[in-house]
Each structure stands twice: as structure tokens, then as C-alpha cells.
């Protein structure tokens, strides 16, 4: 891991993911990516699923990537990186590596569309096969690259263009898929959740470093607040991420060897979910009197899940 002692230093480490990309002002993707690619001294080969990060970082004849980078399609970032990793193993065995003195690690980035939904089979397959790679989901809870349609990561109550609020609708009806636990159930040696920003950046950096240095398939689900489609001010991204953690809407934890769960941050006092939801336009309709029951349901579910994490950690099984 690179020895970066304070957050400002990240702004001065553009050697792998350059600025000048076309991500929205206030987008969390860039922060997460730069933290991940700076979490190791090893060389990186990266694949990226079609999505915000891909369309904003490699528009010919420009690229923000100073590492080898591959984009194939929406649903196959994991399969693509598994092929590259297999080639590395093959060339290593055959003594034909291009740079024998260098250690290469493999990382895939996908949005929640490319990870929870259309790319899930590819991710599950690559994970089951045991390839040595880190997959990072940049989870902005919807298809934001195409104007904010729902995904299976969209939380209950959120307005999206395909689960819109309306005269008889409170927005998304289905609960957010628990992908992190599903990945842990694959028996991955390391799985974690993370958020970008000033408060938990060391948590993310440490998790990325641990994931990259762990042999085998590892997974980080990073919440990526989306100023454009979640409808908050671009300067509030970090605050929104922090509120997701403080309300336990997006708890920070890690799971080793598919079962050993450790909560990596405990809010001193769990904030009510309204503190998080009220800051985002996508949930504004929930604050109408007729939707108050939805807020209650969300709070109930968050409480239940937090309790589940605490008990599971305590049980240590």
C-alpha cells in the first residue's frame, strides 16, 4: 500500500487515474477509483464495465488511465479481467512475462447495473473460478449513465425514471439486493463495503489494500452518491456518503473467508434515516403525509439489518 497519510495527498497522486475525466462535478466514482488504484504499489491491469466511469474516462483519443485498461461491454467486466488474469498465469508458467520483475494485480470496476444486474452472472462465474482479482462495485443505486433508471440496487422508495413517484406510486417498490452478502456466500476470501470521502477514506484505502493483496477473488461494494440523479448539491457528496453510514443505511463492514464478519465503523449514535433521505431529491416525496409509512418501513428494515450485523459479528461464526 502506498504511504498516504492525509487525504490531500490523494489529490496529488494522479499517476494512475488522471484528472480531466468527464465525470460530473461532485461524482464519487473518481474518488473511489483513485483510492483503490493508489492502494497498492503493484502494477495494475483494470477492466471497466460500460457505465459512467467507462464513458467518462476513455474517450478516444484521450484516456485518464495510466495503467492498462480494458472495456468490453456492460455485463462482462469480470469475465474480461478473468481472461487477462488467466493469461498472466499462463505466461508466468511459460516464462514469457513481459516484465518479469513486476508484480501485476487485476481490478475490475462496474456500476451497480454492470454488477448487481446484467453483469452478475459474469461476476459470479469469475468469483467461483477463483481468479485472483478485486471487483469494485461503484454503487450509485441505479442506471445513472443513461439518465437514472432503476436497478436491483435501487432502495425502496427512491424515485427513478423507471420507478417514478406518481399519484399512486411512492417510487421503487423492491428492497435493495444484498449483493455484498451474496458475494460473501461465494466463499470469497475478502468482501467489504466502503464509502468515499473525508471521514472514511482510510477505511476504504485499507480495505482496497487488503483486497488487492489477498489471493483469490475479492469484492468491495462502494456506495457512490450520485449528485445528478440522487438530486443533491455537488458539494454535498461526501456528507451524503457519511450520512449513509451514520444512519446505517449503508453500514461499513468486511467479511473474511466467506463468513467472518467485522463491522469496521460503528456510529456513536445511529441517526434516523430521515437525516439521510431528506437530503436527496429522489426521496422528497416520502416526506408527504401519505408516504410516512414508507419511511417507517425503511427505518424498521435498517434497524433490523444493523441488529443482524451486530449479532452476526458477535457470534463470530
Amino acid at each position: 500500500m502506498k504511504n498516504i497519510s492525509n487525504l490531500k495527498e490523494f489529490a496529488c497522486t494522479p499517476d494512475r487515474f488522471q484528472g480531466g475525466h468527464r465525470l460530473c462535478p461532485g461524482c464519487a466514482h473518481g474518488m473511489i477509483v483513485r483510492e483503490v488504484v493508489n492502494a497498492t504499489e503493484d502494477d495494475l491491469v483494470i477492466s471497466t464495465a460500460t457505465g459512467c466511469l467507462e464513458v467518462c474516462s476513455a474517450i478516444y483519443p484521450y484516456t485518464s488511465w495510466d495503467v492498462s485498461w480494458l472495456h468490453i461491454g456492460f455485463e462482462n467486466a469480470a469475465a474480461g479481467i478473468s481472461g487477462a488474469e488467466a493469461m498472466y498465469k499462463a505466461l508466468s508458467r511459460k516464462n514469457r512475462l513481459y516484465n518479469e520483475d513486476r508484480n501485476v494485480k487485476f481490478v475490475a470496476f462496474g456500476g451497480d447495473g454492470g454488477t448487481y444486474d446484467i453483469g452478475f452472472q459474469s461476476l459470479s462465474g469469475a468469483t467461483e473460478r477463483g481468479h485472483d482479482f478485486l471487483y469494485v462495485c461503484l454503487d450509485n443505486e441505479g442506471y445513472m449513465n443513461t439518465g437514472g433508471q432503476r436497478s436491483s440496487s435501487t432502495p425502496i422508495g427512491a424515485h427513478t425514471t423507471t420507478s417514478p413517484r406518481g399519484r399512486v406510486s411512492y417510487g421503487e417498490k423492491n428492497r435493495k439486493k444484498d449483493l455484498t452478502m451474496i458475494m460473501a456466500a461465494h466463499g470469497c476470501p475478502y468482501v467489504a463495503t466502503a464509502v468515499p470521502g473525508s471521514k472514511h477514506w482510510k477505511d476504504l484505502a485499507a480495505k482496497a489494500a487488503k483486497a488487492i493483496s489477498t489471493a483469490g477473488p475479492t469484492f468491495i461494494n462502494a456506495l457512490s452518491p450520485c449528485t445528478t440523479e440522487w438530486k443533491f448539491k455537488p458539494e454535498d457528496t461526501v456528507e451524503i456518503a457519511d450520512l449513509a453510514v451514520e444512519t446505517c443505511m449503508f453500514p461499513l463492514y468486511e467479511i473474511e473467508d466467506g463468513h467472518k464478519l467485522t463491522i469496521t465503523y460503528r456510529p456513536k449514535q445511529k441517526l434516523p434515516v430521515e437525516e439521510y433521505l431528506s437530503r436527496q431529491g429522489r426521496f422528497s416525496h416520502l416526506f408527504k403525509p401519505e408516504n410516512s409509512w414508507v419511511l417507517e418501513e425503511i427505518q424498521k428494515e435498517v434497524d433490523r439489518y444493523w441488529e443482524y450485523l451486530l449479532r452476526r459479528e458477535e457470534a463470530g461464526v
Partner: protein
Amino acid sequence: MAEKYQLKSKEVWDGNTAASHALRQAQVDVVAAYPITPSTPIVQNYASFLANGYVDGEFVMVESEHSAMSACVGAAAAGGRVATATSSQGYALMVEVLYQASGMRLPIVMTVVNRALASPLNIHGDHGDLYLGRDAGWIHLIANNPQEAYDMTLCAFRIAEDERVRLPVTTNQDGFLVSHTAQVVEPLDDDTAYKFIGDYKPLNPMLDIKNPQTYGAQTEEEWHFEFKATQHKALMESPAVIDEVFAAFEKLTGRKYNRVESYKLDDAEIALVVMGSAYETSMVAVDKAREEGIKVGLIMPRSFRPFPYNEIAEKLKNIKAIAALDRSCPMGAMGALYNEVAGALAANGESAIMTNYIYGLGGRDTTIEHILEVIKETNENAKAGKRVTDLQGFINLRGPKLSFN
């Protein structure tokens, strides 16, 4: 190092076995595959070679054909020799990524054991999958028997990886009729085969991390057209390399291949155009028809893409009537071979009376007698000096006669 496999000078192999030995001899670095009938034995044979130390590359058994081709793209972009095999629905599932592979100019070699596309489901041979990938930017080579399946696969690596080409290549063989029909095959020994293909020549490998590469960038209206035109140019100019490789192969083995194969065409008045195992059936039918005094010949594009327009027009320039036989249902048009051959003739100021026959869908038998019937009908057109038969007919279709004019 992988163990050498001791081969006899003559082996009895089916098309799948032949293709899998060619993959083994090519010392492929990464094979990523998903089994599907009738190409499954290629994948099984490869797994067996690996389990017994005859292969020292990586074998990635993915969870779908989409991931198979995606892993092939990742592996090829990483910088090494890559191959796979598939059929039918698997090929259809790969289609999105076939375009990605060729667009990134990755020299992946894929054996396609041709099989019908559902629905209705059918596991037997036709060219529905081959035609589906027609515009995918791959070179498509045709093998009519197990020997050719072996030979074409060896040639495919050398063509694909040539720095003047750098395009993916499929080698096609008919499901069951070639893939599961054992015949005598004369293989090369391992060293000779590998030497013919040569070491993999890296070009912009991602794993050369001192020179980072970007694969799969976004291009919009400013650049997309230029990239696709450049890719098309590479395909259109690949015949020079294909000819070179076929010539080198002939020098090594004595077996001569051409981008356009033909049989008894020199004095022919009528001709059939046909690809795949039916070409060999048609050879027998041609001999029989000639015994009856019909001057008929045969022609086949061995490279379906790039399509050998000028060579075909040249060979057919004195032919009066032509029947193009397509082993895929064109669904609302003439078959692909009909259209390509008609276009080839027109482009060269030639013309002939042309008819189209659809045959062999889903493994339906096409016998010598069926082909003889087509020859006789085509001869009627030649004798009349105009088309007196149907424009598009169906060979050995049960039920009432189906034809279109």
C-alpha cells in the same frame, strides 16, 4: 513444458478430435470455453490434454459462452495466444462480444461446429450460426472434413496473428457430419505443427505494464467510422496473407487449399455453389451427372469472409446457369451465397441464370440424388437460355413443394 503427444502418420479422427489436436499443437496460452453440442468434445478433449500434461496453458471453464468470448478478449488483449470453440446458441450468445473481439483486432481462433439456431430447438448441423456471424468482422474459413478441420485450424492461427491481419478467425465444420464422423487424418507431428504456426507475436499487450494499453475506448461520431473502415480494410486485404499461409501449408504438407475451391469447372456450362460437407456430396453428384453428359462443375468459397468476389466471378465467367445452395434459412430474402455470387458476377460485368436452393436445415439429409436433381434443374435453365425453374427452392423438404419466384 507440455508433454509431446505421439501421433501416428495416419490417425482416425472426427472433426472435433482433429480441431482439438490442432489447438493442443498451437500451444494456446488461454482457452476459455463453454461446452455445447456438437462442439463439446473439443472442450472435453482439451480438458483431457490438460489433465494429462499435454497442455501447459490456462483452461478457463466459464459459466456461459458470453463469458467465454469475454474472457478470450481479456486474455488476448493481455497478450498471448487464445482459442475457443462453440456452436449454435452458444455462438448466438457470443455475438455481442464477437464484434468486440474483431473491433479490438484480437487474433482469437475459434472452431465453430455449425449447428441450427432455435426455435425450434435442434442440435444438428446447418449454417445458421455461421451466417449470424457474417458481419462480425471475423475471417470465416470453411472445412469440409476432419482433415480440413485440422488443417484450417493450424492455418487460422498463422493468419489471425499475422501483423498485417490481426483479426479473429473462425474455422467452421458441419455439426455431426464432420464433427462426429471419423475419417483418416494425416496430422503433423507436434514440433512441425508448432513451427508452422510460429511463436505468438505480441502487439500492444496489456501485460506489458511499462507501456500501458487502452482497449475498448469510446469513440463517437468523430472516430467510430474511421476505426470500422480500418478494420474492414484489414479484412479486405487479408486474402494476400491467407494465400501466403495456404502456400506455405502446401509446401509443408502437399495439401493445397484455395480461397475459392472448385471441381471440374474448366469445361463446365453450369455450376453449383456450396459450402461445407455438402461440397463433397456434390462432387459425387457432379461425377454422376457428367456420366449423363451434363457439363457441371462446383465452386466453394473456402473463405466465406473475406468473400472472394473477383476470384469467384473469374471462375464462373463462362457459366450459363448457377445454383447457389444455402444451408441456412434466409428468412425473407435469397440465401447469402446466392446474393454474394450474384453480386460478384454483376461487379465484374458477368451474368448467369441464377437460382437459390435452401437445404439441410437442422441436419436434414442432402443426398447425391438430391444434388443430381438440382443439377438437372439448373441444366434446364442453361438449355432454355432463361430461368424455367423456381428462383428459390427447398431440397428434401417434406410436405407440399415450397418455392418462391
